[in-house]
């Protein structure tokens, strides 16, 4: 079947409506797993029909109609299968009040769904896939393509995730303030992972992949609208914007990584930077500083430097020291080591790295060797730097990263005059 593609505005509308429609269908039929499938079918129907027939006058109502029809079909066939026609049919009638069109419930629904999809019972990949489908309104095919797995594999992963949620017996309602406080970090982490996946893989053959970074920003924007008083939600959105702003400068024409110090800063997106900084400033003023806000602040310091050599490293170092006090995470120490080297010289940074050698969480992680190589190069020990660039190249699982690290080693091998530092924290 050949169809015109849906225009971007209509597609955006569909994605915004997806969780609202799912919420409405859920409240009528209560079964999350089946309702989610029905909404997916309604979205696909819209993708097929809207370009031909135009957007219906009440798109939300249209989608609810189609999804509800699918639900009814499903329940009917279920009934037939179970030979309990009368009893279940009555149950369906009772569970399906008149089409509800209370728009004020919609926004809450998006939040409820997001908390459901980022359920602690799920692994990150499952939570990500389910969030993109149920809250993001993406099709299974698009999600599968984004993660380079077959559609059937992604479909299985999603249906298993829904099964886990069902087994866990989470009710479909807004989490209490206490539950919300407990579970918000998991929700933000899933959004962060979606962003990270999209941002770091925007190279080469992946060019036609769905833009996960943009999708993460869109989802975070809606969460921020729904929970405007939470400083960390704003911090996460700011972090995404301030990082995404450098996207065009981050890779060369063939997808090769360009480190922060070598990026063409005129390519940075000023609109995203000012939006990110405004969000961050407002968030910090609330006085409950968190890890995302601090990360965003580091990104902002980089973004505000007209040239690499203008970077306010003492401020970045101070931010990482704060971050370290807040979370016991070896990745923070790695970044702190780079900042310390820029402020106090490489030996200070290498000293911080030595403390990480005993940390099991980083054992065999390429980033430790990559940073060590970089600091050794700064210290003028090129032979040791080459060794660690090569160890790091052998340990990373990303091709662009491996190419970058091998090239660093090769460059040092050829040219012992010693370049100014360029590090891959981009």
């Amino acid at each position, binding site marked *: 079947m050949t169809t015109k593609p849906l225009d971007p505005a209509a597609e955006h509308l569909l994605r915004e409506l997806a969780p609202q429609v799912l919420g409405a269908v859920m409240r009528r039929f209560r079964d999350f797993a089946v309702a989610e499938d029905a909404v997916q079918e309604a979205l696909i129907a819209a993708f097929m029909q809207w370009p031909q027939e135009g957007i219906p006058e009440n798109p939300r109502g249209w989608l609810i109609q189609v999804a509800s029809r699918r639900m009814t079909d499903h329940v009917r066939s279920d009934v037939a299968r179970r030979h309990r026609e009368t009893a279940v049919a009555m149950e369906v009638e009772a569970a399906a009040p008149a089409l509800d069109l209370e728009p004020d419930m919609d926004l809450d629904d998006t939040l409820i769904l997001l908390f459901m999809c980022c359920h602690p019972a799920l692994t990150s990949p499952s939570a990500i896939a389910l969030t993109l489908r149920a809250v993001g309104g993406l099709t299974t095919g698009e999600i599968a393509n984004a993660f380079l797995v*077959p559609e059937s594999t992604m479909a*299985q992963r999603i249906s298993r995730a829904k099964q886990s949620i069902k087994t866990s017996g989470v009710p479909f309602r807004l989490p209490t303030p206490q539950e919300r406080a407990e579970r918000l970090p998991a929700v933000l982490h899933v959004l962060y992972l979606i962003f990270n996946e999209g941002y770091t893989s925007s190279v080469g053959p992946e060019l036609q992949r769905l833009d996960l970074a943009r999708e993460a920003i869109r989802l975070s924007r809606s969460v921020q609208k729904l929970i405007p008083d939470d400083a960390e939600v704003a911090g996460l959105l700011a972090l995404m914007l301030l990082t995404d702003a450098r996207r065009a400068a981050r890779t060369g024409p063939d997808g090769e990584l360009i480190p922060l110090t070598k990026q063409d800063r005129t390519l940075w997106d000023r609109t995203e930077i000012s939006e990110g900084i405004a969000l961050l400033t407002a968030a910090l003023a609330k006085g409950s500083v968190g890890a*995302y806000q601090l990360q965003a602040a580091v990104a902002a310091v980089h973004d505000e430097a007209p040239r690499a050599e203008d970077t306010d490293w003492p401020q970045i170092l101070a931010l990482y020291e704060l971050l370290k006090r807040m979370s016991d*995470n070896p*990745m923070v120490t790695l970044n702190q080591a780079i900042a310390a080297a820029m402020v106090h010289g490489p030996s200070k940074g290498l000293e911080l790295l030595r403390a990480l050698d005993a940390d099991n969480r980083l054992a065999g992680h390429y980033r430790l060797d990559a940073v060590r190589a970089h600091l050794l190069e700064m210290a003028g020990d090129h032979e040791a730097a080459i060794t660690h660039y090569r160890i790091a190249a052998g340990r990373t*699982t990303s091709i662009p990263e491996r190419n970058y690290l091998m090239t660093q080693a090769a460059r040092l091998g050829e040219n012992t005059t010693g370049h100014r530092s360029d590090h891959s924290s981009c």
Partner: protein
Amino acid sequence: MKYILMMNTMRAGQGVIEWPKKDLQAHIAFMIGLNKELRASGELVSAEGLSFPDQAKLVRAGKDGLPITDGVFPEGKEFLAGYWIVDVDTPERAYAIAARASAAPGPGGAPLNMPIEVRPVMSGPPPETL
């Protein structure tokens, strides 16, 4: 995290082709079942079986850039018989799948315990900064 699981066989000796029908069928059913399981668990990215090694050609470019093919291989060499690419949460899970494949039934239904080479596919996951 994606892993490739490579199943190697010797050119001679481990010839499935010479097994009794019952053993052959058990082996084939096992492999089909394993793929079904991996598909159902949402972990299978792809799985392919390769033709027998006697169909293999070794190709090199000659001075003119045209292919020069060679079809004679040393007897003792190991050949790739097939592979799976799986997308799993941990390396341990990839090893567990490899162990299952390794124990595929051979002659008399006894597990073959063949070596399966497991290696990460260069596809992320991206480094996390938090």
